[in-house]
């Protein structure tokens, strides 16, 4: 009987899990694996999420709504984790996730994970530190993006207004 792939078989793909030790399977194995058919919604934007979701197999599409229009943000594959932001903020899900292909996932309740963290379970600790690492990188990258957008936007506005002024003052005698 062929062994089912587990989340940690793919951990090298996910930035969250690529540094986890080889014996990390034990934590995940205590959570049941679920089959998610293609097209099924795994979580919905603005709805409460109670689990960390580990993708073992397949592909999911992450979508976020802006002014009532859904925009595809990214596609994630085996080795990815969903729900880490929601776990720490206690807010509703920030995006909708839909299975793009048939998927196998593990669901680990926040309560279970946090309990393991308090017990200083090595895998839970590793996941925790990797989460901090990942979130810090995301924050840094977002800050740079915001600064870049602000700069571009301000520059555009000032140039546009300067052109408007120059045009009226130089070309027209009102």
């Amino acid at each position, binding site marked *: 009987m062929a062994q089912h792939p587990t989340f940690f078989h793919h951990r090298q793909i996910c930035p969250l899990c690529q540094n986890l030790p080889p014996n990390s399977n034990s934590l995940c194995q205590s959570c049941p694996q679920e089959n998610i058919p293609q097209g099924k919604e795994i979580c919905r934007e603005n709805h409460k999420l109670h689990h960390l979701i580990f993708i073992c197999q397949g592909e999911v599409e992450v979508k976020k709504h802006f002014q009532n229009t859904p925009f595809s943000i990214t596609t994630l594959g085996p080795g990815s984790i969903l729900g880490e932001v929601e776990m720490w903020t206690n807010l509703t899900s920030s995006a909708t996730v839909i299975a793009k292909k048939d998927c196998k996932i593990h669901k680990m309740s926040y309560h279970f994970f946090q309990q393991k963290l308090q017990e200083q379970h090595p895998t839970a600790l590793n996941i925790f530190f990797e989460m901090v690492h990942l979130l810090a990188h995301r924050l840094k990258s977002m800050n740079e993006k915001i600064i870049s957008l602000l700069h571009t936007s301000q520059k555009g*506005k000032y140039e*546009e*207004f300067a*052109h*408007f*002024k120059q*045009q*009226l*003052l130089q070309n*027209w005698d*009102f």
Partner: protein
Amino acid sequence: MSFSPLEATKLYLSKAFKVLEISPRIQKLLLTPYREIKVEVPIERDNGEIEIYMGYRVQHNNARGPMKGGIRYHPEVDGEEVSNLASLMTWKTAVVNIPFGGAKGGITCAPREMSERELEKLTRRFTERLHIVLGPDIDIPAPDVNTNAQVMAWIMDEYSKYCGYCPPVVTGKPVAVGGIEGREEATGRGVFLATKHALAANQETIENKTFLIQGFGNVGSWAAKFIHEHGGKIIAVSDAFGGLSHPQGIDIPKLIHYQNNNPNRSIVGFPEADAMEKEKLFQLSADVLIPAALGGVITKEIAQNLNVRYIIEGANGPTLPDADEILFQKEVIVVPDIYANAGGVTVSYFEWVQNIQRFAWTHQKVVQELDRIMEKAWKKIREIAARKNLDLRTAAFVLGVGRVGKTVALRGIT
């Protein structure tokens, strides 16, 4: 294709923006109103019933000075109409280069079904609601559809209760409460002056030219009087009830006397001209047509059959955009409303100056200054039209928008 006044204004503005190369973001800056106000105006009617009316004031732009525009009482007043008219006032005051921005206001009511006492209550309550955003350096109302010098006197009095004696808060007042000599005739005189300058541009004069005047209210009758005094032949006139024609020209002073003494204030029944259906006016041949009544009367179909050389727009928006194109092709000279009927707001400016100076102007000075301002604006419109190969309406909008834009640019937005 039919155009609402709002659509027509948008079309004319879009042409001006294109000529001036104004980007969409700056266009938005120029088009967005400074402040829009909607208030409830409750009054107790003479029969003891409480009636609640809705009042509006849109202050469009104050880059060039305090905002200026009329207040109208009409059953069809609504926020969109008021907003559009407020924007037009911004461009109009800029075309004649007076230091005002644009505003407009109104109350949705049927003034003909109200007593004078009810109208006074309505006006005072509306002023009470608005007084915090009015003022000689903020926003200065004026008469408009179904409002007059008496209504302005009530506004001045009510505003003065809150802010102290303040004639310059409103213009179009009776002379006895700080009004100016010649305000009543001002829009009509402006139309006459616009006619004079348009003809002069082609080395022509008013004398012996033939005129059709559609609408014989305040604007049409005063314009007719001045044209008649300068030797023009008014061969046909019309009002809401009917029309009159006379191939040798109608005796205008006699017609005005007849109208003033007619119980329903109509020209119909005047014995010294031939009666005709009011619609026939547009089928007659003449040198000049002056539409001086409602907007939207010159449609595409009417434009195709018009047989005139000049149109001087005394009314607001009498020519629809598709008719405008036909007239341009027929080489009819259309002097646009944004300039032609700006005499009223220009003399309002003189009244405001007079009130601030506390020094009354003579009628002669009012007439001289109005002529000077109308001539200067006309020359500028013609210059832009010639330089950019534009029709006069687009040139006038270019002038108005350009002047406002220049002030906005110099004052800055941060």
